[in-house]
């Protein structure tokens, strides 16, 4: 009976993932005719990029995934030109409160405090590049 109750108590605790990762990507979005096939890793993001930025073709210029935990601070470098410094301020049941610093080379472009929910990406509109637009993606997964 005690074992059963202990098992039920354990089962009733909220199930937290064993480990979360934060994924960053640098994407070039352009308009092409016919549209380019969307890279496999960007398929989930293509509809939102098309809706928000109005581009139909995507190029994955760089990506990086690494573990994230509460009170961690680390560089996240999807490309050598654009990269992040991520400071995790707090872990909540469904999201991380993080301080994001976006760099272009040695220059700081943006500082943002964001509550990054799992599987809810953050798009950052970067500079225009050639005929397209650079978009930076961040997602906890």
């Amino acid at each position, binding site marked *: *009976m005690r074992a*059963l*109750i202990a098992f*039920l*108590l354990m*089962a*009733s*605790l*909220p*199930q937290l993932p064993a480990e979360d990762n934060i994924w960053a990507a*640098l994407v*070039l979005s352009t308009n092409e005719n016919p549209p380019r096939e969307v890279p496999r890793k960007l398929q989930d*993001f293509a*509809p*939102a990029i098309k*809706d*928000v930025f109005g581009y139909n073709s995507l190029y994955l*210029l*760089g990506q990086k995934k690494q573990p994230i935990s509460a009170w961690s601070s680390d560089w996240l470098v999807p*490309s*050598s*030109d*654009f990269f992040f410094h991520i400071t995790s301020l707090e872990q909540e*049941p*469904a*999201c991380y*409160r993080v301080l994001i610093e976006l760099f272009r080379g040695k*220059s*700081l*472009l*943006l*500082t*943002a*405090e*964001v*509550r*990054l*929910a*799992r*599987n*809810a*990406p*953050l*798009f*950052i*509109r*970067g*500079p*225009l*590049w*050639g*005929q397209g637009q*650079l978009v930076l993606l961040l997602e906890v997964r």
Partner: protein
Amino acid sequence: MKNFESRFNRWLDGSLDESERLAFEATLDEETLLSAKLWPSIRSTLRQSASGIPVPHPDFLNAQVLRDIARETPPPPRDGLARLVWSGAFCVLAAAVLTALFLPRITADISTTVVSASPASPSVSASAFLAPGGRSTVIWLDGVEYIPGAERVQ
């Protein structure tokens, strides 16, 4: 009946006045009257006799009496305890099932939110909004320096 009892008690206590006492005694049959008249003296005699009887080993006697009482008292039904335990287990199980069903849905509905966004350059402005669909969030930077297409980005 209640009136009779009341008057009977008052009669036993001797609190009826003379006329009431005579009227009440007229309603009693002879046997009742006799036994009732004897009762105060019987009670008094019994009290005097009982208080004078010495009890040998009173503590042992008391323990024996308490043990006999405990033996004759039926134990509390064990069904109650078992039912309580199973009810508790059921509640915990129900909580576990509800948590498993609804917690992923609750957490899945949470979107990324931007608390603050500050561009480093004063020539750049930042705004944040929720993308159509409600799950994605956008930080829109305006005024970031254009990169010529000839310049390689990697």
